């Protein structure tokens, strides 16, 4: 079972390149350059069943978590030929990250000097750097993130310092165990301490890595404290190396991350929305002055999402979003989706996930466009303000 995530490129520079590794058995395409050049954002596409009926974009990031691959041994993955082969997604970029915000949450109490502990549906798992590197090498991702000791915001200073020391040590372990010369992102932690964040970032910046993964967020810190912590990290990192953060999912959080210089995001936002029957309705072309739909708030919606389970959609023969090009909006109506959710049919999740992923990716597209036009701050302000307006209007209409 893969995790659904949606990373994206938000920073100003244009390209993220990955070597086209020979170990992949995708058919050789003479047209394709030796390196993947992604001038768009990489993004993530994944579905519960491991395949999606919608046409798939050429470049996607898929975090693959060792714990999600219980039931299939590293050796078998290797025999199949790695992740690209196993999932039959040859055009995609894969990232291997140990943490999965749904099925492999870092269990900081059980993590010890030997390895990182995760709470999974199959129980608690302790993974050591050597085991991790072995698993990653069987998966053959395009890049992978070193093992980290992530702690939530409320741990003691001592525990926090230990997490930084451990993460650095494991980073060095992973680097030395890395025989195949694959692309590695160094992990940076530091909890809610500005000093520790500085320290860790500075240390990792000195290592020979190809990018940075920033962990320890989305584990209990508030959005207000996070801004300073993010910049404490990114201020110490070279400009021209990609930065990837896990655990920031809400659109406002993504905007916050982009402002701090983050390039790649993965989150469970789309997953949770879909589970709840919520469909994203981002007004991707922002029209200030549109009347807020008060009816939406009664059903739990707002100007960004609607609750497809609500009875107001029983007879609604329009697509979720009129102008949306996704498979779901091109083929189905809110009424049909409402019915599918009410009778608990699997197809509801599949169709909604396609739409929500498409919308969320569109959001990242808008961010990129705003950056390229030099209007990011304005974009961010407008977005946050119109959200506040809608919530205020909904509250005052009660």
């Amino acid at each position, binding site marked *: *079972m893969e995790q659904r995530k949606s990373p994206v490129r938000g920073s100003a520079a244009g390209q993220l390149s990955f070597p086209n590794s020979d170990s992949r058995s995708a058919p050789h395409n003479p047209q394709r350059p030796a390196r993947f050049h992604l001038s768009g954002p990489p993004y993530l596409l994944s579905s*519960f*069943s*491991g*395949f999606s*009926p919608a046409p798939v974009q050429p470049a996607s990031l898929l975090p693959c978590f060792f714990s999600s*691959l*219980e*039931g*299939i*041994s590293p*050796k*078998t993955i290797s*025999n*199949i030929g790695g992740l690209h082969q*196993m*999932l*039959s997604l040859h055009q995609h970029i894969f990232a291997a990250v140990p943490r999965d915000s749904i099925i492999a949450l870092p269990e900081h109490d059980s993590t010890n000097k030997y390895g990182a502990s995760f709470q999974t549906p199959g129980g608690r798992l302790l993974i050591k750097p050597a085991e991790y590197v072995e698993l990653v090498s069987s998966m053959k991702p395009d890049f992978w993130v070193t093992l980290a000791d992530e702690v939530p915001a409320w741990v003691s200073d001592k525990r926090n310092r230990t997490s930084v020391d451990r993460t650095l040590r494991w980073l060095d372990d992973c680097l030395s165990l890395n025989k195949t010369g694959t692309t590695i992102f160094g992990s940076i932690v530091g909890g809610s301490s500005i000093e520790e964040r500085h320290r860790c970032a500075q240390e990792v910046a000195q290592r020979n890595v190809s990018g940075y993964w920033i962990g320890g967020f989305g584990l209990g810190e508030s959005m207000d404290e996070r801004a300073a912590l993010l910049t404490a990290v990114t201020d110490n990192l070279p400009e021209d190396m990609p930065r990837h953060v896990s655990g920031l999912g809400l659109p406002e959080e993504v905007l916050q991350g982009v402002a701090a210089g983050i390039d790649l995001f993965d989150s469970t936002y789309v997953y949770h929305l879909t589970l709840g029957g919520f469909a994203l309705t981002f007004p991707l072309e922002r029209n200030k002055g549109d009347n807020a739909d008060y009816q939406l708030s009664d059903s739990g919606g707002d100007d960004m999402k609607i609750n497809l389970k609500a009875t107001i959609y*029983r*007879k609604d*023969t329009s697509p979720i979003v009129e102008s949306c090009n996704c*498979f779901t909006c091109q*083929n*189905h*109506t809110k*009424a*049909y989706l*409402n*019915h*599918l959710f*009410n*009778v608990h*049919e*699997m*197809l509801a*999740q*599949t*169709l909604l996930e396609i739409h929500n992923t498409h919308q969320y990716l569109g959001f990242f597209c808008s961010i990129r466009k705003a950056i390229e036009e030099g209007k990011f701050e304005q974009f961010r302000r407008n977005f946050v303000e119109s959200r506040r307006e809608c919530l205020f209007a909904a509250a005052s209409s009660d």
Partner: protein
Amino acid sequence: MALKFEVLGRFNRARAAQLTLPHYLCQTPLFMPVGTQGTIKGLTKNQLEEIGCQIILGNTYHLALRPTSELIDELGGLHKFMNWPRALLTDSGGFQMVSLLHLADITEKGVTFQSPVDGKPMLLTPEESIQIQNRIGADIIMALDDVVRTTITGPRIEEAMYRTLRWIDRCIAAHKRPNEQNLFGIVQGGLDPVLRDICVRGLVERNLPGYAIGGLAGGEDKDSFWRVVAQCTAALPEDKPRYVMGVGYPLDIVVCSALGADMYDCVYPTRTARFGTALVPEGVLKLKHQAMANDIRPIDPMCECMVCKNYTRAYIHCLVTKDAMGSQLLSYHNLYYMMKLSRDLHSSIVEGRFPEFVCKFLQTMFPKGDVPEWVCNAMEVAGIDISSCCREMRFDVDKSSTL
């Protein structure tokens, strides 16, 4: 009458035909997947088209509960609601009588169910069933019949058969859209050839667009099963489609086609997929089995479907042991298998190589030659020589005239 049925090829009793329905031009023999609540579990309409599905079944009982036939009608019918461009068939809701019998009360008026959703009583009369199906708008609709399990004996079976005939007249009278929807009658009568004969004659007198053979696929022994099918196909008109309800296993479909049936429906391929079982020419493959965990072959190396072209048994094993969503891949493959079987039956009859196809099918499924006796007997009656597939020939067939 809103269909055309043109036989394109034969081999003894077996026939391959073109069935033209309001929404789609179909080729028989064909299998119809069951999309009870307006969807085939987890598969999109594009995938269903890719697989080659021609007709999909919707269940009147479930759809009437949610989202209600009135809503479907208001939104333009089930085709539009689901966005399914091909053909649809709705059953009458009658099968639930058998499956929920301890909650049902059957009288001359109709059937009272207790709704499994909210416990409210629901009365399904022949008129109501047809009205609901008129609102849903499927290409083929089924008469409400009085279904009894074939494992029951006694006067109940005779009562049910006669009632089915009285109800067909009520269904015909209530049917408001005969130029757009085809009402099929259902032959009942249990395992009693005399009752079945009466029922067939009665239905044929009404000159319906098509006929179904009902009351089977409910646990009766295979020997009785094929004999009833053989009797009915022999007695039903040549120029109208024959639908064996609730069938089923690939082997059963091959036998029934040899005996002259054209259409089938069953939840088996999709239900078994949700339990991690794949259909393969040799029989079944259980993906949850530990042995699959390291098997990097596709489900069926000869299968051309999207699943077999892209995924390994090991990967599917890892998915199906987790949750039902992982079984979407198996549903896809299993339905592909059934539709391919349908296509192969049609083309082998049209191209004059039906016996060869049957033999190859049986040899693959029974490599040791242990073809079940009932299959041998049925093929004898169908006039198909399968001696090359069987280790020993059987000669104890009851060739009574009703067959």
